[in-house]
């Protein structure tokens, strides 16, 4: 199956030899931190970022003065300059920012890993702080007079027709995906229900203590067809921080290192900012497929080696679509794989989003997914999968995307 997947579209023309990839095995995640997740943090995003970074530095057993690199989301309203002053970081030798919303999450790790692998920095913090629920909530159309659009984002071709908010963008993909592969609402419902089960095991999850059944899913409010309320991620306030260093240094620190096997990014032809709808076929996600190819190329492993996955789940159809593009199942079989929930829940063939994911834990642009993937490697998750060797995280999609593969 995997060979067939490989031969489907990939052309390796010009890709470097995997031996040239300096990140694999030589870099690691040494610390993770987070604030609580809530509907209203009651404090500034700068404070949220500081709290998460302090938490991560402490988790790693480092001193703040040792931090010499910072990677931020381009969308983050805080920045490295103010963080250096706020946190009393002495000097910063490396700083970078990653674009494209949640597509940036694993990109931050690839930038940080590249920096430590090449000797630009020793301890790099990647972070995201967002008061997305109480502050600048997504889905609010910015400005009513003229569409706010960078010329190359092409929002002008969609906004005048009311295609104005993220769930509607994903809904057009979802409708066609369901049409092309005879996907049912119940199959998508299982994704949502299983993630809620996982959230109910995680006291930090926003939906902890709020179980949901398939009946609850089917009865939940239709937002933009075919997406129901339970297909959509939970708007959240929160912050996460992750510390990347070399594996050698990480071994001397407090935690079991989560060793990086691969950290990759992907952009593909005819991509748009969540509206890559002009391609010949929209039930495929070429940038995700490409990132997958890169991930397997640099890491030298295949999907069957993955023990646990945190798929970027802003909306539930995105999980089965990614399973197909990363090569876990064949084209068109992702939703069938999720049906009934057995294969994707903890203890199943491919346990997914074991902290509840964006649908039920919190929506911190993928960074809470990375924290969970690290906990799975350490063996400290509330939804711990037995004997985890290899742990996958994928970044936001429908935008330029990213992914990381971690190991014990």
């Amino acid at each position: 199956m995997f060979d067939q997947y490989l031969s489907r579209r990939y052309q390796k023309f010009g890709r470097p030899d995997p031996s040239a990839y300096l990140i694999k095995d030589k870099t690691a995640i040494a610390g993770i931190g987070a604030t609580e997740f809530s509907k209203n943090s009651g404090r500034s995003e700068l404070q949220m970022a500081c709290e998460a970074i302090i938490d991560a530095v402490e988790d790693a057993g480092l001193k703040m003065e040792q931090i010499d690199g910072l990677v931020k989301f381009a969308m983050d309203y805080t920045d490295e300059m103010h963080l250096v002053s706020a946190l009393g970081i002495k000097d910063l030798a490396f700083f970078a920012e990653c674009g494209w919303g949640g597509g940036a999450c694993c990109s931050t790790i690839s930038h940080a890993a590249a920096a430590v692998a090449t000797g630009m920095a020793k301890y790099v913090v990647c972070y995201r702080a967002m008061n997305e629920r109480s502050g600048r909530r997504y889905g609010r159309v910015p400005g009513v007079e003229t569409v706010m659009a960078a010329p190359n984002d092409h929002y002008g071709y969609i906004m005048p027709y009311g295609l104005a908010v993220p769930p509607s963008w994903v809904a057009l993909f979802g409708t066609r995906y369901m049409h092309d592969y005879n996907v049912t609402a119940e199959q998508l419902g299982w994704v949502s229900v299983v993630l809620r089960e996982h959230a109910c095991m995680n006291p930090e999850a926003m939906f902890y203590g709020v179980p949901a059944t398939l009946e609850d899913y089917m009865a939940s409010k239709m937002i933009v067809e075919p997406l129901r309320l339970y297909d959509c991620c939970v708007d959240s306030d929160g912050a996460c921080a992750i510390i990347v260093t070399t594996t050698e240094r990480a071994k001397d620190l407090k935690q079991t290192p989560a060793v990086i096997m691969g950290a990759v990014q992907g952009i593909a032809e005819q991509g748009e900012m969540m509206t890559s709808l002009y391609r010949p076929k929209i039930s495929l996600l070429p940038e995700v497929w490409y990132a997958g190819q890169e991930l397997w190329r640099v890491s030298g492993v295949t999907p069957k080696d993955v023990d646990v996955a945190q798929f970027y789940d802003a909306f539930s159809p995105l999980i089965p679509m990614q399973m197909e593009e990363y090569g876990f199942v064949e084209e068109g079989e992702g939703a069938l794989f999720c049906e009934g929930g057995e294969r994707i829940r903890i203890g199943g063939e491919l346990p997914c989003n074991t902290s509840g994911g964006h649908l039920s834990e919190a929506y911190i642009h993928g960074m809470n997914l990375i924290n969970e993937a690290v906990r799975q490697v350490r063996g400290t998750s509330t939804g711990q999968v037995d004997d985890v060797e290899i742990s996958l995280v994928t970044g936001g999609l429908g935008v330029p995307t990213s992914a990381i593969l971690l190991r014990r």
Partner: protein
Amino acid sequence: MTVNYNKNEMIPAPVVDPDSKAFWDAVQNQELVFQKCGDCGRLRHPPRPVCPKCRSLNIEWEPSSGKGTIYSKTIYRKSPHPGMKAPFTVVLVELDEGLKLISNMVDIKNDDIKIGMQVEVVFDNLTDDLNLPKFRKVD
């Protein structure tokens, strides 16, 4: 018209930049046109300054057949914007020449819009300055 615009509110208007100006100018004249490479003849949408196939900077504008089929759709149950009243449907139309366009349907109920339905372009005159290409069902 299927999208009920709230005329007391501003409707989001397209941003026109040098790459898209010819497209929107044609629309204001009730014409749907697509960018065509002046060298290799490849059609493309949305407009961009270079042909991705042969990298030519020569651009021509080709009138569209205006005919196509519904490729995907979504129905808003709650309006995202004060300028529009829910429920309304957004469609992705695949034109006969192979390009896709986001739009709305006119003169049809939301639930009657189906994937594969044959459609043709019409122009919705929203204001003195703004026409938008919309689609209606072809019987």
